[in-house]
């Protein structure tokens, strides 16, 4: 086991600038998920760590040792590919034993290690079968077995369960989590599925267009996104992003959305926003559906809105509220709003409202205004 360091990684494919000045430190035993949309460079980053892709500049360390110039075989890592990459002409046993054969271990040793790993993955009955006779989930277990059998310093996984159906993905997620807890192998896991990222990761590293956007625990990334990209990429349904008009209103700050009713915020907000937002930049408000509180009765602080569309999702509903000229998604208990067109009341949960500089996309850090 080992820590992994990525310092100033840059990668071009021809003129395509795929990884841009990427810095990331992964601690020993940590499970880090690289999360981002398709084509953002996740796979390339992972392959660079494995040595399957050469980088143009930067430093990659495993266990504090620079490895960027070593061939993959000398980095002591294991890689799980999205399509499993199990050899069709070998049995499950031989597939798992394959990495051990490279190091010339004795037959008895190989037998013992394969059996051990198979036991922990609960695939002993499948060892004699060929990949063509295995189901998707079992293929994945065998692939993971092949990766773990050598006890590598780090385990790299590229969308390892992306090809499975939804139910199986959920099972495998739990299983991966269990394996990580049991083995504690430093892991880097690539996915574009934020649910997967949130449920597996110790820390999530969100990427876009080759740029690392934010690294943090799942809740940090979810609760305190550093920019509009992270705010909208993480979380489902997506965070509401709406232009807003801010003005001081007596002891309070009025935040008017879509030219409609103004929501009341603490009085010092206006000054802080004024200090944080560069002159001439637009401001947008970001609020997750669960931070939009809906009530059927009027009460102080609530503003009248109209339910526009109701999307029942079983455990809860997502209701599109018409706020002024804008639609904002709110999350309500199921059946709370009974029909579209109903007039209801809403407020925004102040601590969960984010303000972004629409021009740069960055979140506005609201330092207490001085002086």
């Amino acid at each position, binding site marked *: 086991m080992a820590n992994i360091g990525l310092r100033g990684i840059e990668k071009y494919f021809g003129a395509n600038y795929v990884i841009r000045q990427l810095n990331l430190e992964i601690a020993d035993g940590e499970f880090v998920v690289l999360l981002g949309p398709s084509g953002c460079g996740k796979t390339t980053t992972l392959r660079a760590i494995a040595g399957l892709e050469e980088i143009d500049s930067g430093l990659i360390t495993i266990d504090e040792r620079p490895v960027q110039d070593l*061939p993959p075989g000398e980095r002591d890592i294991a890689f799980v590919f999205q399509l499993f990459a199990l050899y069709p002409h070998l049995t499950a046993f031989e597939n798992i034993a394959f990495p051990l054969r490279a190091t010339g271990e004795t037959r008895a040793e190989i037998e013992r290690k394969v059996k051990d790993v198979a036991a922990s993955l609960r695939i002993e009955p499948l060892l004699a079968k060929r990949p063509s006779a295995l189901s998707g989930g079992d293929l994945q277990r065998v692939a993971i077995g092949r990766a773990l059998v050598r006890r590598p310093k780090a385990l790299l996984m590229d969308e390892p369960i992306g090809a499975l159906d939804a139910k199986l993905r959920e099972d495998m997620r739990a299983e991966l989590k269990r394996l990580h807890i049991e083995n504690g192998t430093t892991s880097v896991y690539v996915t574009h599925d934020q649910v997967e990222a949130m449920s597996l990761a110790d820390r999530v590293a969100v990427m876009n267009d080759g740029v690392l956007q934010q690294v943090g625990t799942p809740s940090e990334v979810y609760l305190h996104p550093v920019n509009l990209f992270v705010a909208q990429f993480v979380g489902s349904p997506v965070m509401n992003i709406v232009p807003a008009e801010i003005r001081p209103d007596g002891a309070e700050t009025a935040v008017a959305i879509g030219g409609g009713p103004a929501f009341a915020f603490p009085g010092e907000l206006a000054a802080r926003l004024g200090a944080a937002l560069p002159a001439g930049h637009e401001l947008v408000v970001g609020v997750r559906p669960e931070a939009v509180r809906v009530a059927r009765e009027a009460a102080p602080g609530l503003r009248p809105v109209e339910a526009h569309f109701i999307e029942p999702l079983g455990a809860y509903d997502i209701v599109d509220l018409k706020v002024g000229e804008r639609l904002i998604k709110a999350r309500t208990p199921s059946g709370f709003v009974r029909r579209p067109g109903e007039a209801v009341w809403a407020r925004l949960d102040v601590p969960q409202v984010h303000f972004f500089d629409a021009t740069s996309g960055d979140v506005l850090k609201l330092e207490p205004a001085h002086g």
Partner: protein
Amino acid sequence: MAMVASPGKRIRNRLAIAAVLVVTLIFLAPIYWIGSTAFKPRDQATSVPPTVFFTPETTAFVKLFTKRVQLRQPVEPETYAAAPWWEQRIFDGGERVLRVKGEVQLSAYPSRFMNSLIVAITSTVLAVGMGTLTAYGFSRFRVPAENDWLFFILSTRMLPPVVVAIPMFLMYRAIGLTDSHLGLIILYTAFNLSFSVWLMKGFMDEIPKEYEEAALVDGYTRMQAFWKIVLPEAVTGIAATAVFCFIIAWNEYAFALIMTNRRAQTAPPFIPAQVGSGLTDWTTIAAGTFLFLLPVAIFTFALRHHLLRGVTFGAIRK
């Protein structure tokens, strides 16, 4: 599923089977003709209408393999009785086997047949081997101007052999490669290589590069990964390519006719050369032709499982 087919479907099925039978018969007819002629007595070989029922005999094959001379007078009964069965067949035809110092003199056929085997097998092994490696390179590495190279390789096949045969012959004569095994092997290898590269490139592209990358990560070298992973995965393609290359090399006529005349002559130019020298013995020619058909048939039959997968590769894989 046990389903009762509708009458329309049944009729269509029957028609399809009948069509397959007819086509098969049409294709097998010439092969049957050659095969049966090889086993017919000589006087029935060219009878019109063709004899259908006859007592098969092996005389034609004995003649095919031996040098013979006309008997001036009938053999002594005791010589006949002492002779082995195959020699008796020759005596029956009014000939005797030519012997030099007691050694039976073989005809040219076995050596021509051997030439064909040597040239076809060696050039197939070379073309498929080099083609596999080249295709692997094109498939896995970034080759500058890859498509231009591939087109160039294909273009070497664009001129019909007869067009290049004469200039090739002149070049071969200048460097002393005419009528040599090496000359034909080089020619057939070059000829088949483009085909082999293109075919193998398709098969290599079908093998996920993750297979080797997984092996590389596990500590194998690229060469080891190639031997342990790529080759076993490519057997199907290699078998299919080998069959095609072998058929082309085995049947090649134009180059063999021009480039060879004796020592390295292969069967295709040799067999027809027997026709028309005096009274043509069609049974012997049929026997030679019949044997000539066997290697390709055996080779193809031996690799049939790979072939069925190979020619439909990609369509039915998984």
